[in-house]
């Protein structure tokens, strides 16, 4: 979680200093979701991610220097600079791709689960998406298919309360949990700020899916601390500052987990500080690497269109 937090802070910094092209959607505040779920996966399990994907990618095993290189459009990046922030993909870590189409991962994750079942590989796939994707009809088509064919896929809905600048209650009728249930998909709601709770719920669902008992749906209640994207700084018109402060003060996933580790005597403050320090150094080195890495030669533009 700390790695993701530190990664995202550097993304914000790079962007603010006009060193990063395009846009970026920060995952700060939601770290426990990606970490809790991905820790329950095997390395060769699959994920699909979203426009807010850095956390998922890192949690599934991506290394920061190749991610920064991609975010800066460098040849050394995961996608040779062709994808950027919203399209990090990596077969090596089972990452089928971040996706800039809301709900765009639903078909892909379900299809990977189909192939897993067909080939008997036992792999599970997790489809991460924001609660905004509940507006995309294709999600229901996929849940129906997954349940009909008992596919090993988990739909991980990150409810951070906002579809961009609109509160989800203005866009979402009825009860979210009833939606997967309507298609027969097993569903569970979890405190998305509690990494252990997320991990426990995800593990149970992933095991169940791997056993052949069909898909699952996790509703992960969480919050993004920052703007919808790095440029979204004046947010008062759509959400109160106090709301943000409350989440940060009371529900920070990293602080909550640190407190638990300390209380359980699993780690002392020095150990935690050391981890933070090491990660900070790693992230700084990764940024440095990416900043120095060369851009692709313009001639590369015509490569990789067709396999």
């Amino acid at each position: 979680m700390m790695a993701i937090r530190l990664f995202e802070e550097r993304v914000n910094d790079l962007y603010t200093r006009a060193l990063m092209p395009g846009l970026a959607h920060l995952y700060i505040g939601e770290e426990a979701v990606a970490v809790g779920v991905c820790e329950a996966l095997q390395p060769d399990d699959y994920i699909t991610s979203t426009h807010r994907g850095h956390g998922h990618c890192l949690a599934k095993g991506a290394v920061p220097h190749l991610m920064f290189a991609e975010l800066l459009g460098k040849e050394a990046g995961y996608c040779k600079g062709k994808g950027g922030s919203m399209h990090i993909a990596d077969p090596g870590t089972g990452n089928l791709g971040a996706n800039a189409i809301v709900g765009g991962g639903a078909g892909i994750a379900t299809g990977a689960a189909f192939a897993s079942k067909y080939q008997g590989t036992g792999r599970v796939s997790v489809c991460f998406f924001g609660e905004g994707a509940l507006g995309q009809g294709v999600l229901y088509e996929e849940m129906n298919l997954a349940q009909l064919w008992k596919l090993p896929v988990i739909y991980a809905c990150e409810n951070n309360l906002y579809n961009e600048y609109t509160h989800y209650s203005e866009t979402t009728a009825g009860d979210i949990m009833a939606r997967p249930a309507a298609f027969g998909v097993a569903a569970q709601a979890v405190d998305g700020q509690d990494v252990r709770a997320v991990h426990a719920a995800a593990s149970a669902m992933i095991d169940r899916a791997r056993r052949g008992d069909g898909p699952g749906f996790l509703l992960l209640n969480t919050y993004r601390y920052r703007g919808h994207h790095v440029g979204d700084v004046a947010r008062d018109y759509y959400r109160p500052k106090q709301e943000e402060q409350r989440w940060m003060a009371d529900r920070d996933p990293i602080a909550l987990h640190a407190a638990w580790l300390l209380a359980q005597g699993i780690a002392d403050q020095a150990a935690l500080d050391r981890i933070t320090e090491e990660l900070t150094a790693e992230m700084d080195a990764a940024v440095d690497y990416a900043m120095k890495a060369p851009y692709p030669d313009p001639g590369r533009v015509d490569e990789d269109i067709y396999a």
Partner: protein
Amino acid sequence: MPEAVAHAGRVPPKADAPVREITFGEAIREALAEEMRRDPKVVLLGEDVAEAGTAFKVLKGLVEEFGKDRVIDTPISEAGFTGLAVGAAMTGLRPIVDIMFGDFIALVMDQVVNQAAKSHYMSGGRWKVPMVIRATMGATRRSAAQHSQSLHAWPSHVPGLKVAIPSTPYDAKGLLKTAIRDDNPVVFFEDKISYAKVKGPVPEGDYTIPFGVADIKREGRDVTLVATSSMVQVALGAAAMLEEIGISAEVVDPRTTWPLDEKTLIESVRKTSRALVIDEGSFRYGVTGELASVIAEGAFYELDGPVRRLGARHVPIPFSPPLEDATVPAERDVVDLVRQMCNK
């Protein structure tokens, strides 16, 4: 990415209202506001269109004036709200839907093409579908392959739709008003870069620009540059550079791909004897093919050489700046090609 603000557009002399310089985005907003004042049947639907005024802030202020009943935030359901707008249009409203990124028209093609475009014809003319689908287009924002496409060729291919693709604030305002008052489904493409970067004279108050009337953005003698949307600025920039080396370029903007003003295109090329068509859509099977064919057929005997075309490179739009910059036609590309066409 263009850094400077381009100043674009002329106001025909007949306009008598006060004229200000405003941006392309402001012109869009002004057209919407005026039409909403004029006709209570006009409603706006889309994602984050109300308080947020869209991702591009183009609609800022409308909800304050017209209220949440007419400027309506929707769920992220492009097919859903576009389909809803079809039914609302058939039963008395004039809905305008906002497709945040033009790439998402892929999600609404069934509603637009199989429903909106065909309802009038299939019913033997008995139902009408007066709606506008506003969609953005254009690359060079480092938004990568799923947020940079210019897909206006698709609806242009479909009978029953009209397609507008303005390049200047003046045209944007006048064409959008025409679109809203049209009794047919109109797909209206707005270049994202132009919102803030293209400024030009626009009369206050009401005026409309008829569909199917091309505009000669610059007169010239040696070559006709037929350009659409963002490419009009590129063509004008190139024309200025060409002037310096003694090539006089005429720039013609069709303004609507359908209906299409074939006559103006053909006449211009009959005069100049050379034509280059420039469009930001993907190069193959797109807008340039149709326009070039129309010209090649209509001005065949006056042509000094083949009609040439420039479009976006036939690749998904890459994220990395040096790669993206190699995908969309730039002034330099136009100048080089025209020099070749003119043997200069």
